[in-house]
């Protein structure tokens, strides 16, 4: 039973694929449309996604999610900086992904909001249970 549950849980690579498709690719496409001669942030040269949970967590409503962080790299002449390069700006975006539904949430001022907000869509804060592991799991994770 445990084995079947484990195999049903989303993997890190699946989580990364969803984040890449639902957030990073759309964000990059949006940024390409906008002028860089602006007071808005200048889009990074390259981004990398890190899934920060080893295994998926379950929220109060039973949804499985994994937390992630997106690091950004600015500057020219370094298409693919080394993974341990200090030039990476860590945690430029943090959030969580529900692999099964393909939903991505990002943290903004200590609240989670749908990732669509970064794409310019008008959104409202996510419900309280989103991206929060249910009580038992939090204790287990802490131990």
């Amino acid at each position, binding site marked *: 039973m445990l084995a079947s549950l484990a195999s049903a849980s989303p993997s890190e690579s699946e989580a990364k694929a969803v984040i890449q498709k639902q957030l990073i690719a759309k964000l990059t496409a*949006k*940024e390409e449309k*906008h*002028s*860089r*001669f*602006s*007071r*808005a*942030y*200048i889009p990074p040269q390259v981004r990398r996604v890190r899934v920060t949970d080893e295994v998926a967590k379950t929220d109060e409503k039973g949804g499985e999610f994994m937390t992630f962080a997106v690091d950004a*790299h*600015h*500057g*020219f002449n370094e298409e693919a900086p080394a993974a341990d390069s200090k*030039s990476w*700006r860590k945690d430029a975006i943090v959030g969580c992904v529900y692999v099964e539904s393909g939903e991505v949430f990002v943290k*903004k*001022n200590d609240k989670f909001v749908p990732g669509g*907000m*970064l*794409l*310019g*869509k*008008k959104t409202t804060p996510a419900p309280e249970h989103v991206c929060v592991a249910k009580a038992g799991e939090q204790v287990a994770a802490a131990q």
Partner: protein
Amino acid sequence: MRLPKVIRPLWLLALAAGSALISYGSVTYFDAEELPPFVIEKLPLPMEEVWMTALKSHVVAAAFALPACLLLALAFVLKRFPRIHRWLGRVTGGVVLFVLVPSGFYLSLFAKGGLAGTLGFMLSGAIVAFAMVRGVLTARAGDYVAHRRFVMHVLGQMAVAVVSRAMMLGLDAAAFDPERAYLIALWVPVLGSVALVELLVPRPSRRKHHEAVSRPVVSDAREPGLGVAV
């Protein structure tokens, strides 16, 4: 101190191009369907509608005021069309004092970079407001040497919008920390413009002041708003 003659037209041209780029990029602020990155990074905002109104007012006012200031600085316009210079000056003064500066002050309260960002924009706005008022008063008094000096401070601070963005691109290319780059790209042009105008635009001496008041007909070398690159 005077700069080589070729620098001035190149500088005005660069500012005109920068202004056009900024205005073109600002069209996105009026898209009701999608929020642009500059707005997204500010969210959530208290009284979002008020902030958006201030932003749109500021954008429209700046899209008019910077090119207008560049036109006002042209010797050709001043010599051939002095009435247009005067009327354009009046309209620009009104737009700057009643729309650009007040909306800028409100937006500065939510500036990136915390207090340092807010103070940088407020200082720039205060210089613009003070210099514009003094510029209007000296023009009305016929003191064109002083008028040129004050309006050059206005143009210098307007130029911050262009220089600052160019610096941000350069600092980003050098992989500077974005927060620090934002503040450097704000404070350096704000203070640099003040220093350059003070350095390059002649101060009205008592004799010059007397001449300017008693003889308002301008010469090539002493036209208000001319002869300097900031």
